[in-house]
């Protein structure tokens, strides 16, 4: 029974292609995460997340990436159902055929990673999309500048009564930005909650952005989160090991000379990338 009306090989190639894009994105994400290891109070990390959050080319890739994540998951689930239906009566004796361990559990390792991805999205991506509330930081200089501009308008009598009242409230609020809210590690940055961003700077204020640095530090401060994080990347390693090998096979890249190279790339990638991610909570737990 077909749930997706394409040739089986087309479906395989589609699944592999979506996965390939995710494979290419992982090192980018890893690069940004490794900025957390720098003892610069999150300067590099914040700059990197600022770039990823604001650059227009990245924004286009972001849509492609989210589409790939969703399609990879949906196609994988549909194919698994199709495959299950291809054998309506199961064997009584479970298979004793020796096959690569990882290849048999791709849907399960993928499922675990997908569950973590939901958590990860709630923690970070949905904050960026303004669905979930997180921590924010704003550039105090820019807050000041916006405030000054509005004050100028007030002086020249351009504002109506309602706006005047709002501006006064804002003035009151800004005067309450206490020194302890200032982020010493980064000049002119204040750590704020969403409510504070709105009262200080107005809803349309563009210079406040989610403070992923503070949020990640808070998450990694919890040992339970770090433990789950490391475990998930171990599982992802298993998933990735089969992924690259399988990708080559699906694209028809099988060659006596190059297949062993692909095998090695597969192993190295599946070890290096998850270890790279897992180093961060380990570093925070044991070194910092």
């Amino acid at each position, binding site marked *: 029974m077909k749930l997706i009306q394409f040739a089986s090989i087309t*479906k395989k190639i589609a699944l592999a292609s979506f996965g390939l894009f995710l494979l290419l994105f992982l090192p980018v994400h890893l690069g940004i995460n490794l900025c957390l290891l720098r003892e610069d109070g999150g300067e590099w990390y914040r700059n990197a997340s600022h770039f990823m959050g604001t650059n227009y080319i990245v924004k286009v890739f972001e849509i492609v990436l989210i589409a790939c994540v969703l399609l990879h998951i949906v196609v994988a689930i549909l194919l698994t159902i199709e495959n299950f239906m291809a054998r309506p009566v199961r064997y009584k004796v479970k298979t004793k055929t020796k096959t690569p361990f990882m290849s048999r559990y791709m849907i399960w390792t993928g499922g675990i990673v997908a569950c973590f991805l939901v958590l990860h999205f709630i923690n970070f991506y949905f904050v960026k999309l303004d669905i979930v509330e997180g921590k924010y930081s704003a550039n105090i200089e820019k807050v000041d500048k916006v405030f000054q501009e509005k004050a100028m308008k007030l002086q020249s009598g351009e504002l109506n009564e309602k706006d005047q009242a709002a501006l006064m409230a804002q003035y009151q609020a800004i005067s309450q930005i206490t020194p302890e809210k200032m982020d010493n590690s980064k000049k002119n940055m204040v750590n704020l909650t969403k409510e504070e961003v709105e009262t200080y700077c107005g809803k349309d204020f563009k210079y406040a952005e989610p403070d992923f640095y503070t949020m990640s530090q808070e998450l990694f401060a919890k040992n339970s989160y770090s433990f789950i994080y490391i475990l998930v990347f171990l599982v992802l390693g298993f998933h990735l090991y*089969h992924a690259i090998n399988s990708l*080559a096979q699906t694209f028809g890249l099988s060659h006596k000379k190059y297949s062993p190279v692909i095998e090695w790339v597969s192993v190295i990638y599946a070890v290096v990338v998850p270890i790279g991610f897992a180093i961060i909570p380990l570093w925070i737990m044991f070194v910092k």
Partner: protein
Amino acid sequence: MDFTLKIWRQENRKAKGRFETYKISNISPDCSFLEMLDILNESLVNKLSHPVCFDNDCREGICGMCGMYINGHPHGPDKGVTTCQLYMRKFTDGETITIEPWRARPFPIIRDLIVDRTALDKIIQEGGYVSATTGGVPDGNAILISKHKADEAMDSASCIGCGACVAACKNASAMLFVSAKVSQLALLPQGKPEAAIRVQNMVAKMDDLGFGNCTNTYACEAECPKQIKRSNIARMNREFICAKVASEESTKR
């Protein structure tokens, strides 16, 4: 040697099947698996009960007729052999042997351990051949083929179409079978003219018949009695991609 056999019995395609347990003793270690079943059947006939039905023909491992799922392995625990070439010395004395028919949606059970593998023939009918016109016999050396290619094509052609790959695959996929058939022709110049349409037609038929999708687990390769390699599947994927992208011919529905 003595064995306890648990064998799937099913009257016909629609009947409900069940496992029956039989004791069998005094089996020579040099007895083949099918001969052991013959001995069992003889005793069943003597008791006026219906013998266990199973497919077999050449009994020398080349026809691809025999095939049963023995203790979690298609064609049993031995490597690179069909059920008829499996000997009882591969089992331990007193072992319980569970024998099941191939399980796959496109392989309905005919009776007991016999399944209908017409699905594989239907795939071949979609293009697993070279269209030959009549005429004089061409000269043997008219078309040069490298030894390497010829050997590879020969390896692919050694597929006997027994269906063990489908039986072994956790998705009941026929990719190893189809890819071997596509490869043996795609590797040789005689098969090239029809290669693009062949792979598309055969894959389309395979999908229509209800085989599962390949997830690159390679159980097929591990269990194939003719040790057909997974590189055939990669070749078929490659042929399929090239045909879809470059060829103007496509499967007509």
